[in-house]
Every structure is written in structure tokens, then in C-alpha cells.
């Protein structure tokens, strides 16, 4: 039985429909991430699950039981907020024990539960430390500890890493990932950061304008985006997307975009049968455009380098191939500079073609 079932959720604020029709399930031990730009309805959805908002219509089931009318504090849901909300004047022990004390749990039981939780989140050595002395990663662990000590059925995390600088965020993300695996509680995680979603979630629901646009495992979402929006939103740098038109001649099919053309004869049947209009969008991820200084592949296209962004072992190359600007993410090549002529090869197994009008993937 799924831990959480959300069915046809809808929420209207005045004239604004924040959540239009959202349904999903979260299995035992699974982490589902609600991902989308600000205003997509992800936080409202989370707040409805927590019981902090009442849905206009729709149902929320926990362990198969309808909880729409259950008060937030009775739902057995652990909430971790953006700023962690650690009590600065209380020790780590008391921070973790807080919820148990409110529930008037006997002292001996509190001690045992806090110590068990502390072992799990690795704060046994700092139980006496005061809340205001904690570093970021300790705060994160204590905030999660404070939720899981109450044995919640479900954990809700609302953008827990969004106020942290880039370098620390990288570390905290990994720590959170490890912690999740160890705790093994079903989790709904809300974020606008696609990298966070990719690295922390088992499955992602990409939201837009109050609806789930696509739901799937991280690899499914990344490798097979079903809409232009998802293709563009997931991945950094973004997928190359070029407006183009299919040109049929002498049994071959070529996608044309200005002076740029790509032979896609092998996909002709699919394109023909599935596309509704003549206007298509060709998509390819930057890492699937490989570069060489010499022409080693007969199908390689000549490209001019317009900008190079070194990012460590790899670089992002901004290329001009005929008309459109195309990004390639490939190994750092010291000999390639602005103005260099290089040869670009598209990995044809990784092409995406979208119908421009309906904004959906043909394949």
C-alpha cells in the first residue's frame, strides 16, 4: 500500500487557481520531489498534505486513511522548513525532545528516543551543545532529527537547501542524501532547483501552472522529457532547442533551421506519423554534442566557437553551426578558444524532436 495518496487536488485562492488537478502516490521509503518554478503550485500542494491549507477539492490519504479532516498535528507528518527553525536557547537534546515533551511522553522514553535518533543522525557527541552554536550541517541534521523522533509516517521538506551558498549546498545535498537512505521514511521534497531534485529524489513530479507536467524517475525525466517545458527546465546547461522544419526529398528527410541541417531519415516514419504540424523543435543536450579539433567523423559539422565557459574538467562551448547557437559540454580543451573552428557531432541516439504547436515530444 502506498504511504501517501494525493487525489485530484485543487486549491483556489480568490480568483487564482494555485493547484488545478494534482494526483500522485509516494511508496514506502520513497522520496518524491515536487519540482517547478516559483508559482507552479508545489508549496501549496505540500501545505495541503501537511494540513496547513484546506484543499478546495480533492483527497489526501495517509496509509490508506483519508486525512482531509485530520488536524495537522494529528497527521503524524514531519515537517522540515527552509530555515530549519532550531530553538537557539535549547540544547540539541531538548530541540530533538521538544515534540515528545509537548506530547507529554514519559521522561525515560524521551531519553531513549532522543538517543536512538541522535545515533541515526550522528549528533550523539553534541547533545549538550546549544542551538545557537550549531553549524549548518548540524542544524540540518537536528531539524530532521526533531521530526523523525516522533515516528512520522511521512516527511515533508520545503526547500531545505535554498538559503545556503553554492559550495556548502553541494556538501549538504550529499549529507541529506545519505541521511534519507539511512532513515528510510517516505518523503515529499519541494524545490525549484532541478539539480537538487535530480540528486535527491527517487522520482520527480515536474509542476507547471498548478499541474504535474511529467512524473517519473530522475533518469526518465532527464532522458525522455515529454514536453518542451520539462526538456528546458531539467538539465544544466539547458537542452539545445532549435525551431526547424522537415524537408523531404529523394527519400531522405532533413531538419532545416536556417543554414543548419540534420539528416534524420532513420526517424522519418515516426516523425511523419506523429507530428501534427510542419513546425518541429529539435532538441539535444549539450553533453550529446561532442567536439573535435579535427574532422574524425564524416558526419561532423563545422562550427565556430563563440564563447568558452570552463567549469573544471569540462567546458561549455557556445558554437555557431550555420544559423543557430548551440551549446556543447565536453572535455576541457586548452587549444580551443573564441574564434576556433571545431567539428561538432550530434549523438543521434540522444536526439529529441518536439511538435512546436502542442509542445509535446514526438520521441
Amino acid at each position, binding site marked *: 500500500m502506498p504511504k501517501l495518496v494525493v487525489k485530484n487536488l485543487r486549491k483556489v485562492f480568490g480568483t487564482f487557481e494555485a493547484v488545478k488537478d494534482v494526483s500522485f502516490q509516494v511508496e514506502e521509503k520513497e522520496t518524491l520531489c515536487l519540482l517547478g*518554478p*516559483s508559482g507552479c503550485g508545489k508549496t501549496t500542494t505540500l501545505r495541503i498534505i501537511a494540513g496547513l491549507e484546506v484543499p478546495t477539492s480533492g483527497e489526501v490519504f495517509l496509509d490508506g486513511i483519508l486525512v482531509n479532516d485530520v488536524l495537522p498535528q494529528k497527521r503524524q507528518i514531519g515537517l522540515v522548513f527552509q530555515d530549519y527553525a532550531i530553538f537557539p536557547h535549547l540544547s540539541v537534546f531538548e530541540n530533538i525532545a521538544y515534540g515528545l515533551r509537548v506530547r507529554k511522553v514519559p521522561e525515560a522514553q524521551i531519553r531513549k528516543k532522543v538517543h536512538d535518533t541522535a545515533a541515526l543522525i550522528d549528533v550523539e557527541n553534541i547533545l549538550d551543545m546549544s542551538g545557537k552554536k550549531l553549524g549548518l550541517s548540524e542544524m540540518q541534521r537536528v531539524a530532521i532529527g526533531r521530526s523523525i523522533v516522533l515516528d512520522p509516517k511521512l516527511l515533508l521538506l520545503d526547500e531545505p537547501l535554498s538559503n545556503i*551558498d*553554492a*559550495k*556548502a549546498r*553541494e*556538501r549538504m*545535498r*550529499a549529507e541529506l*542524501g*545519505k541521511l534519507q*537512505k539511512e532513515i528510510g521514511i517516505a518523503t515529499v521534497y519541494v524545490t*525549484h*532547483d*532541478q*539539480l537538487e531534485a*535530480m*540528486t*535527491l529524489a527517487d522520482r520527480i513530479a515536474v509542476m507547471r501552472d498548478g499541474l504535474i507536467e511529467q512524473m517519473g524517475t*530522475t*533518469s526518465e525525466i*532527464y*532522458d525522455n522529457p515529454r514536453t518542451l517545458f520539462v526538456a*528546458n*527546465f*531539467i*538539465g*544544466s*546547461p*539547458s537542452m539545445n532547442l532549435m525551431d526547424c522544419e522537415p524537408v523531404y526529398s529523394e527519400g531522405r528527410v532533413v531538419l532545416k533551421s536556417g543554414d543548419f541541417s540534420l539528416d534524420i531519415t532513420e526517424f522519418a516514419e515516426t516523425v511523419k506519423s506523429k507530428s501534427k504540424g510542419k513546425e518541429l523543435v529539435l532538441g539535444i*543536450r*549539450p*553533453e550529446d554534442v561532442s567536439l573535435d579539433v579535427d574532422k574524425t567523423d564524416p558526419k561532423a559539422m563545422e562550427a565556430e566557437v563563440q*564563447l568558452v*565557459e*570552463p*567549469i*573544471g*574538467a569540462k567546458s*561549455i562551448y*557556445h558554437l555557431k553551426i550555420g544559423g543557430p547557437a548551440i551549446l556543447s*559540454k565536453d572535455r*576541457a580543451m*586548452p587549444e580551443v578558444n*573564441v574564434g576556433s573552428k571545431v567539428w561538432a557531432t550530434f549523438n543521434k541516439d540522444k536526439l529529441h524532436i518536439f511538435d512546436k504547436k502542442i509542445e509535446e515530444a514526438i520521441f
Partner: protein
Amino acid sequence: MVALRLVNISKKAGKRQILKNVSLEISDGELFVITGPPGAGKTTILKIIAGLIAPDEGEVYIGDQIVNTVPPGDRDVGMVFEVPPIYPNRTGFQNIAFPLEIKKANDEEIKERVEAVAKLLQITHLLERKPTTYSGGELQRVALARVLVRKPRILLLDEPLKNLDAKIRERTRVELKRLQREFGITMVFSTHDQIEATAVGDRIAVINEGIIEQIGAPEEVYNSPRTVFAARFIGSPTMNLTECALKQMGDRWVLDASDFNVDVTAHVRAIEREAMTSELLLGVRPEDITLLNSPENSRCFEGQVELIQNFGDERVVTVRVAKTSLNGLVGKDRIFTYGQRVYVKFREEKVHAFYRKTGIAIV
């Protein structure tokens, strides 16, 4: 020609030393990036260049002139702040024209220059609108236009992209770099985001606690970090760092990290004698670790997969070798499972070593 030179700049705030002996030299037309964690002293350097803060010690040269006593308005330096002070009740045009009005330029010249800079920044459509209707990215560009319209010799940008969404940030950073090239303007840019720093900078300065750790081209700092701090700060995922000692084993020299070791016989002649008796840190970038399903030779170390982070185009796989966790970077087509047994192999020629006490790299 040298556009800007800082010589032994120090600055204290109360008892806290904000900058210690900061020296750097920036050429005309260069895009120079100052990067470091929050509180490292980045903004203070920019403000000292602009003349908004006076250094306790050291000299500021613009061109070949000392400007320590020159007021900010006469330095020919423009500064764009993290939160740009835009007048909400003036239109885009009036905001951009403001510095020219102060200089009492005539209407015709003002119109011409505002329109030229607006066209370049692609904000012509914003000229008649008021800032309350702008998005974050648009506001940032109007602020930039207002500084650029003065044609300053040096442009200072303090975390210009910090408050933008991830996707817009990526795009704006490219725009800024293109713009800098087109204008040929000398630009000093601060950011806490090391990826942004290496992506845009011709050269970068890594700063920590008021001290410059290293200055160099992005590739140089990435490939040959001179300190542990620079090694750890630049690059994502972060370099693996483990305590080790240099030891002789038969006719081989190894960096011994107890749980594993790396053969450095080929480089040992270049290693300083002092290294033999010192505590060291072994540094390996994640892309210089290969994960194998079976051991290739005796130089591979057995470990267990502890965490998998899916970045889309790549995966970061954390492997536990005895008591040490190591991050390896693998392509998107390689599948790993939690708890899986793998063998770690190092690209030994790419390994870094640092003195543990001083943090200085061993040549």
C-alpha cells in the same frame, strides 16, 4: 596596459581583519573574478576600488595613478550592487539617463547614449516602463545600463547574479561575458559561486578570510591549485582530500592514506625533501577516480557504493573504501546500485598533495 593595481591592501573592522595584504593587477579589457565563500572579503575589495571604503594600508592604482585620495565620483569606476538602487517612480529611460543628467549632458546626447546602451542590453522595450513591472533579470540589466552609459574605465559588479533563478542566472552570465567582450571594458566581478567564477573569468582570484589564496586562469587554478583551500573551493563535485604520508615501499614511492595508497614514484624527484617527514593531504578530483566492477591489478582498492547522485549528464558515486569515503564521477550510462562492490582506481598522474599544516601544495 594595467587598468587597475592593488598593492598590499589591508583593512580592519574593529578587531576583525577583513583583508590582509591583498595585491592584484588587472589588465585593460580583462574580465577578472574574485571568488570565495560569504564573508571572505570580496565586497570590501570592490568597495576599496570604487573608493567607498578607504584601506588601512596599501595603495590603489587606476592606470598608473594612485587614487587613494581621489573621491569615488572622480575615479572613472562604475559599480553595480547586488541589490541595485533603482528609482521606482522613474521610467527605465529616466533611470539610465540619471548619471548623464548629473553630468549635465545635453538632451540629444543623453537620448543617443541611453538608446545605444539599451539596444546593446536588449532592454529597449523597458525604456518607457517603470521598474515595478520588471523581472529580476530585467532590473539587473537596467542597473547595468545605468552604469555602462557613463562609459567607466572599470566596471565593478558585486554578486550581480545572486538573486536570479538558476536558469536565468545561467543565461545572464553568458550575456555579461559577451557584453564585456563587445565593449572591451575592464570588469571586476565578485561571486561566491565557483562555477560562475570559472565560467566567466579570464582570470580568477580565490579569496578566503581576507587572504588571496591563488590568482590564475580558471584552468590553471583547477588543474594546479596552490593551496588546499583553492583545491577544495574550485571544482564541483569537490576534490577528495585525505590525510596521508609519503612512504618508500621497496623501490616505489607512495602517498599512503592507510585505507589506500597512490603510487607517485614518477613524480618523487620533484617532491621536496620536507614532504617525507611532514603530515600531508592527498587530493584526487572525482573525475580522476575510475570505478571498476572487478580489479584490474593490485593498484585497485575494494569499496562499497554508499551514495549515488544523479546529475543528469553524469553521476557522482560515493564509495566507501574501509573508513574513507571517496567521490567518483561517472558517465550517465553507467548504472550503480547501493551497497554494490566496486574497485577504485586512481589516475595517479593527476593526484595532488598538500602540506597539512600550511595547506600549501607540494610541487
